[in-house]
Structures are given as structure tokens and as C-alpha cells.
């Protein structure tokens, strides 16, 4: 059993944490960068004070577990992992135990936080909260274990297409800017929802929470910089999509302007929630031109994040470093009252320059497991 668990840990757990390194870095930064130990304790006591409030962490744990389930499903679809299906030949009790251990390792962050909440609840005498936490954690562990066992028992399941998709495929033509939007919605919905939720939350905060009679355009600029930079991971995924799943695109006789137009249209489509939030709730005391420049600024940010990826082949971590520097640079410039329109112009010109210079010379180094 030890050998099986060790192999499964390499296939599922190590890959999971490597794949989500940036996600954990972001969560770690948000949790430990802004809040002190006392604030963490206060928040935990607040969560365990009532069953209703406990639904907040439990919902987060459920989303995380769903992310784990989807990740495991993708791992099983990779050609090099087909050997894992031989596991169904092993006795069910040993198999289930190994898988349970693997799932527990993947759910470790939520298990640790749940333990922290249990300690807080016990300290405050909130025994019902302890019961709710234990039940939800056990349920999530069992659910994800059962799902993985089931998927291991049913290899190479027939791909089925919903009647709605079949109807649309039959009656409509897709355009290029729909390709990536549909791909990300199907392959990495958590990244999409995570990016959208974060960016909309930031925009909501700068548009509503600090609404004063004399709204400062710089606040909007800061919000736009941070909110749209949250979509940088989508720009990274778009680059991966184009270079792994749609490699033939490079062979097509499309002018660079047309390619840039396609990318811009894709980003606009992806950022429709943010744009509608921005347009509908734009502060009344600001001039209409500020709205236009903030939209242009947001598009220019995404374009520069995308075109930067053509300079050299870089991984997500390095890309996020570039994103961080651009966000910090934009924030400082905005604080010094540099107009968003000017920043947009600089980013657009730089982005177009990078794209023209590097597009045809760029060489993507595909990961071994990327083709499937």
C-alpha cells in the first residue's frame, strides 16, 4: 500500500501543488500579508460563532474541493497517466485507503484551517460548530475519494456532448474570439471564476465603498490597474491555448494587426462583467473621457500582459513577476496623477512593438504532458 500511495502522491498531489503554486502564493500573500495573528483569531471566532457564518468557510472549502476533483479528472485524461487505471486490479480496501490518503494530502490546506477553526470553537465552547466543521470536512473527503475511485474504475469514458451544445454546433458558426472563451470555461472554470470574482470585487470596492461627493479619478485608476491585472492569469492561459491547442494558428496568413484585433476582441469578451460594472456604476462627477480612458487602460494592460509572453518562453511564476512590476509601476504613476489615457498609450505602443518584434521568432517549449 505504501508504494501505491507514494506513486499516487507523485501523480496527483505533487502535480497539484506544482500546478497551483501561484494560486497558493496569492492566497498566502492575501492571508498572511494583510492580517495579523490577532485578526486571524478574531475572524475565526466570528466564523464559528454561528452555523450561518460557518457556511462562509465551508463554501470556500467546497469550491477548493471542486477544484481538486476537476484537477484529478484532468490528470486521468493525460496519456502518460493511463497506467493509474491498473489500480482497479488492486483490492478495494487498499485502493480506497491509498486514494483517501492522496485526497487528504490535496485537501491539506482546508484540513489545517478546519483544525484551527475547531480549536477556536472548542476554546469558545461552540460545540455545535465543531460538529458542523467535522461533518463538512468528512463529507468533502469522502465525496472526493468516491469520485476518484469511480473515475478510476471507469477509464476512457465516452465523451458526451449536451443537446444544447450540439444544437449550437449545428446551427451557428464560431468566431476566433469565442474559441478561447469557450475553452477556458470548459477547461479551467475555477481560474475564470476566481479572476472574475476578484476583479469585480475590487471594482465594486472602488466604485461603491469609497463613493464621495468629490470622487478622485486616481482611486478609479488604482482599482482598474489591480482589477484588470487579476486577469493576467487568463492572458497566460490564452497564450498556452494558442501555442498548445491551436498551434496551427501560426501557419495562417493573418496580418499581425488582425491577430492583435482577435486578441483584443477576446479580452473584451472576457472582461464584459468588469466593463458592465464599470459603465453602469461610473462615478457621476467624473468626465466621460475618464470612462473611455479607463476602458482603454484596462485593455492595454491585458494586451501588454499577453504580448510580454512572446518575448521569451516563461512560466506562470515569471509572468506573474512581470505583472507585479507593471501593477506597481501603474499604481505609482497613477498616484502621481499620470492620466490613465497616457499609461494606456504607453502600454499599447509597447505591446504592439513587442508583438511585431517577437511573434514570428517566438518558440514555445511545450510541457511533455501538454498534448491531450
Amino acid at each position, binding site marked *: 500500500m505504501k508504494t501505491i500511495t507514494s506513486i499516487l502522491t507523485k501523480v496527483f498531489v505533487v502535480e497539484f501543488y506544482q500546478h497551483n503554486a501561484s494560486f497558493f502564493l496569492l492566497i498566502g500573500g492575501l492571508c498572511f500579508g494583510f492580517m495579523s495573528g490577532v485578526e486571524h483569531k478574531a475572524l475565526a471566532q466570528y466564523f464559528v460563532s454561528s452555523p450561518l457564518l460557518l457556511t462562509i468557510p465551508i463554501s470556500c472549502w467546497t469550491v477548493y474541493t471542486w477544484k481538486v476533483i476537476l484537477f484529478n479528472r484532468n490528470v486521468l485524461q493525460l496519456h502518460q497517466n493511463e497506467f493509474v487505471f491498473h489500480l482497479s486490479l488492486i483490492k478495494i480496501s487498499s485502493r480506497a485507503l491509498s486514494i483517501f490518503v492522496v485526497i487528504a494530502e490535496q485537501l491539506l490546506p482546508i484540513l489545517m484551517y478546519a483544525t484551527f477553526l475547531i480549536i477556536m470553537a472548542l476554546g469558545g465552547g461552540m460545540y455545535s460548530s465543531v460538529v458542523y466543521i467535522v461533518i463538512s470536512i468528512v463529507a468533502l473527503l469522502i465525496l472526493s475519494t468516491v469520485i476518484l475511485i469511480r473515475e478510476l474504475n471507469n477509464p476512457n469514458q465516452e465523451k458526451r456532448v449536451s443537446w444544447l451544445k450540439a444544437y449550437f454546433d449545428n446551427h451557428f458558426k464560431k468566431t476566433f474570439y469565442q474559441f478561447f472563451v469557450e*475553452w477556458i470555461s470548459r477547461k479551467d472554470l475555477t481560474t475564470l471564476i476566481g479572476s472574475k470574482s476578484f476583479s469585480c470585487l475590487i471594482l465594486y470596492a472602488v466604485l461603491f465603498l469609497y463613493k464621495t461627493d468629490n470622487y478622485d479619478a486616481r482611486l478609479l485608476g488604482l482599482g482598474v490597474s489591480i482589477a484588470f491585472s487579476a486577469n493576467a492569469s487568463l492572458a497566460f492561459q490564452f497564450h498556452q491555448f494558442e501555442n498548445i491547442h491551436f498551434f496551427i494558428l501560426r*501557419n495562417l496568413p493573418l496580418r499581425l494587426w488582425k491577430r492583435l484585433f482577435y486578441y483584443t476582441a477576446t479580452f473584451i469578451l472576457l472582461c464584459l462583467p468588469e466593463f458592465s460594472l464599470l459603465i453602469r456604476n461610473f462615478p457621476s462627477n467624473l468626465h466621460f473621457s475618464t470612462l473611455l480612458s479607463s476602458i482603454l487602460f484596462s485593455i492595454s494592460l491585458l494586451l501588454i500582459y499577453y504580448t510580454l509572453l512572446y518575448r521569451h518562453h516563461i512560466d506562470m511564476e515569471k509572468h506573474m513577476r512581470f505583472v507585479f512590476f507593471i501593477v506597481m509601476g501603474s499604481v505609482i504613476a497613477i498616484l502621481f496623477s499620470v492620466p490613465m489615457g497616457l499609461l494606456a498609450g504607453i502600454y499599447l505602443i509597447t505591446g504592439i512593438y513587442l508583438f511585431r518584434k517577437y511573434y514570428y521568432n517566438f518558440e514555445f517549449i511545450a510541457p511533455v504532458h501538454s498534448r491531450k
Partner: protein
Amino acid sequence: MLTIKNFAKRYNGVLIVSLTEMRLLPGVYWIKGENGSGKTSFFKSLAGLLPHDGEITFDDSINLKSHPIEYRMRVNYGEAEPLYPGFLTAKDLIHFIGKAKGATSEQQNSLVKHFGIESFYTKACETYSSGMIKKLSLALAFLGNPKVIILDEPLITLDEQTRGLLFQLIQATVAKNVIFLISSHQLIENSTLEIIGTYKISNKEILAV
């Protein structure tokens, strides 16, 4: 005619495949080489998918590096192991690539019919077998008015009937002054195809046989 001069493909500075000079006239060329010899890298470079050293020029001076759009309009590529986004249908891909390559609707429909794609034309690629994916990639490689069609291992996963149809189409296209570069581990000498030149990759160099 297509001329390739001083071609070299390197990965991280390591030479993979090179070629001093090659002049290609309309007709079928067979490129041979062991697994990992660099055939696919050579083909992808020729198709403008990978950067490389050297010059690739048509006789009217259209060059891969200085005329990237015009060059790509003339060179089509069919991958050995094609991969398309699973949610796209053959219809989506044929329309999109056909439009970019300047293929008429009549040509698109005729290729769909020729390769027997009608039965899965509006179905998502994720439901295809490897043979169906191959048929689609071959149809895509013929779209537009290419002067060069590169087919990397076109015979793998194809059934006998489709092989016949492919050879038939290649011959009809050669008659329109098109250059074919084909790599195949299967013997194609015995097929109906008239091969006008054979090259072999040996010791990282492409040499005429």
C-alpha cells in the same frame, strides 16, 4: 519552385537538423528519417511554425521571413498528431482556417465530401477517433490555393479506403503545380503516387537519396 538555403534548426543552441540547399519543383517528395531525426522540426520550420536559420524562398522572391503572410498563404501543413480544441467542430475549423487561407465554400464542401467528413462535420472534436481527427487535418491541409503542402506522417491511423482517396487527391493537386513534402514510415513507393525526389535525414543533415 521553392528554394531552401543554409537551413538549420536548433533547440537551445543544439543543432537538430540542417540542410545546405534544396530546390523543389512541383511533385511529390518523400522525406525519410528515423524517429527523432528532425523531420517534424524541419516541416514545422518550413510551415512557419518554428523559428530557424536560413532562407526559404519561392521563385518569385516570396520569402518566409520577409513576406510572412504571403508565404503562409502558399504553404499548408498537416500534422502527424493533430490536436485541436475538443469543443470545436470540423465545421468551425474548416470555416475558420478556410477563410484565412482563402478557400471558397465550394472547395470546403468538396474536401468535406472527399474525406467523408460529413458524418461528423458538426460534432465536437473531443468525440472523434484518431482516424477522424486525421481526416480533418488532411482536409485542412488542402484548403486554399497552396503551392506547397507538407504532410507529416499522413498515413498513420488512416483506413485503406481513405489512403486511396488521399493519394488520388495528391495526384490531382500535383497536376496544379503543387509541391508535396511527405514523411512516412510506411512504404509509399508501391502506392500510385509518383515520387520525384527522396531525401533522407542522416547525422542531422538532409541529403538527397
